[in-house]
């Protein structure tokens, strides 16, 4: 029996297709403009696909020393930050998932309280500054080392971990440390991957931490440099002249190329990783 395609299905499909277009088109447009030669961009003829395909803009962007330095910085912050955050969060979450831990209820309450009340921007800034980690890698790593949400997701996951496996480790003479590192960790790689990705994307995208705690331009991550170039309009004028008069730089294409360069890593990993993200959200949602 063929299902009847009613008017509702048609309208619904159209609405959802519009959602897809509204979400994807900005990216397609940016990619198209940044890959087109400037004559077409200036005439406003680029819409869906690049016209007069050229990689000039990308060459310019990648030659910019600020961007290559920022790229390197971001990679360092993301790698180190994710490693630290994942270690601290997973160990803490495992300990919290054990009811028999001393004062575990109290610790949980202390942690949940921070979701509803915080010291605020300025007191946190002054305190972090007093630790002397301003303008170091640690300013990007430590203030965001634990996200309460991720901690609670992991705790929920660990509390559902089969206790027979832990028990068998205990019989073999392992302490809780051994059980965590040699039994629980190897068997929970999926949750580690999920939470690790949350942290990595969060660090890649973070703008507030560097804005507050980094003053040295050589330390800036990609997001800060991107903001300076695109939103604060600090384009490098030396670039524009270096290309020559026949190949006029269109500011718009250059900015779009900069945006694409800093977003492509996220766009590339996205299709592979999105299923993990959804899983992570749902683990957290079941019993937050």
């Amino acid at each position, binding site marked *: 029996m063929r299902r009847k395609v009613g008017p*509702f299905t048609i309208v619904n499909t159209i609405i959802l297709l519009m959602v897809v277009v509204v979400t*994807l088109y900005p990216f397609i447009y940016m990619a198209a403009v940044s890959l087109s030669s400037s004559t077409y961009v200036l005439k406003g003829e680029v819409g869906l696909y690049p016209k007069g395909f050229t990689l000039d803009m990308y060459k310019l962007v990648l030659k910019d020393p600020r961007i290559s330095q920022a790229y390197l910085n971001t990679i360092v912050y993301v790698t180190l930050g994710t490693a630290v955050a994942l270690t601290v969060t997973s160990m803490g979450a*495992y300990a919290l998932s054990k009811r028999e831990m*001393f004062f575990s209820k109290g610790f949980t309450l202390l942690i949940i309280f921070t979701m*509803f009340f915080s010291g605020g921007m300025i007191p946190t800034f002054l305190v*972090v500054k007093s630790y002397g980690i301003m303008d170091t890698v640690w300013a990007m790593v430590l203030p965001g080392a*634990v996200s309460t949400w991720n901690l609670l997701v992991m705790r929920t996951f660990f509390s559902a971990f089969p206790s027979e496996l832990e028990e068998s480790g205990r019989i073999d003479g392992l302490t809780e440390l051994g059980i965590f590192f040699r039994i629980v960790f190897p068997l929970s790689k999926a949750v580690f991957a999920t939470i690790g990705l949350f942290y990595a994307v969060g660090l890649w995208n973070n703008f507030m931490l560097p804005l507050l705690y980094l003053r040295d331009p050589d330390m800036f991550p990609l997001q800060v440099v991107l903001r300076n170039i695109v939103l604060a309009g600090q384009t490098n004028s030396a670039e524009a002249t270096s290309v020559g008069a026949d190949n006029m730089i269109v500011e718009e294409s250059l900015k779009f190329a900069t*945006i694409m360069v800093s977003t492509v890593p996220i766009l590339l990993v*996205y299709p592979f990783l999105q299923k993990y993200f959804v899983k992570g*959200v749902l683990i957290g949602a079941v019993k937050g």
Partner: protein
Amino acid sequence: MAKLQPASTPALSDTDQGEMKAKRKTGVWLGQTVKRMRKSRYLLLLFLPCFLYYVLFKYVPMFGIVISFKNYNLYKGIWASDWVGFKYYVMFFKNHDFFILLRNTFLLGLYKLVFGFPAPIMLALLLNEVKNAVFKRFVQSVSYLPHFISNVVVASMVVMFLSPSGGLVNKIIEWLGFEPVNFMVKPGLFRSIYVASEIWQHFGWEAIIYLAALTAIDPMLYEAAEIDGATRWQKLKYVTLPGIAPAIVVIFILNVGKILEIGFEKVFLLYNPAVYETADIISTYVYRVGLMQGNFSYASAIDLFTGVVSLVFIWSTNYLSRKLGKTSLW
């Protein structure tokens, strides 16, 4: 010995007995505590880095709020600066910006709630009606892509697409035969732009929770409704919506509680002095006054004010929802 004592000293008054009991209790409690701590010492060791994080980066700053009652001195630091009492609070409440900031923050949060809260529910309901699994998954995957794009990129895109000279939106406006609009310097448009960009960025992601709640509805209910001859609308009203109501209520409470906690990044990246009258919110003001002008104590006072108001907000929404219905956060 502990058992004998009350019998051998019958003359003891009630208060003495009470005291002794308390002493014995503390003794036992201390012993047990040490025992429990020793027993879970490896777990405590695993927890230690996490604990240190919360103390150093969450609780010390909370105590650091005392700086709002002091006159911050760069050389003396937070703890040694001189007390000034409520000076900075009075200063904030008397400032003519106080009302504007409060209004801007509240209205921006309110609009985000009014328009941003139903959007993911509608998306989830529409997706739920799609029978083709491939199409459904495709729309869903695409719709939560922007959630992973940074605020800097989203703000850059907004500013560039709305640019009066050659931005995509203005090109379309000109093509339709109208005058280009300089969106980013019109105070009357800031809230709409902000709310629209927030919805664009997050509604697909926020729909995930509702979709999960939808899959948890027993299909038998739909079958029963169909047998009773329910229309699509009736099924929505009597099966689907009651099924996801608990999720809706919980997320609504969370969002109402967060009404004053508008993300600093997005507003900071989108606004400019031309639209301060509608765009300047408490957190951006705190940033400018505190970090750019160096009035740390004054800015901290505003921080504490916001924190307390937020806490009251989330507490009272939870209280109300517990009074009115059955669902609450705690």
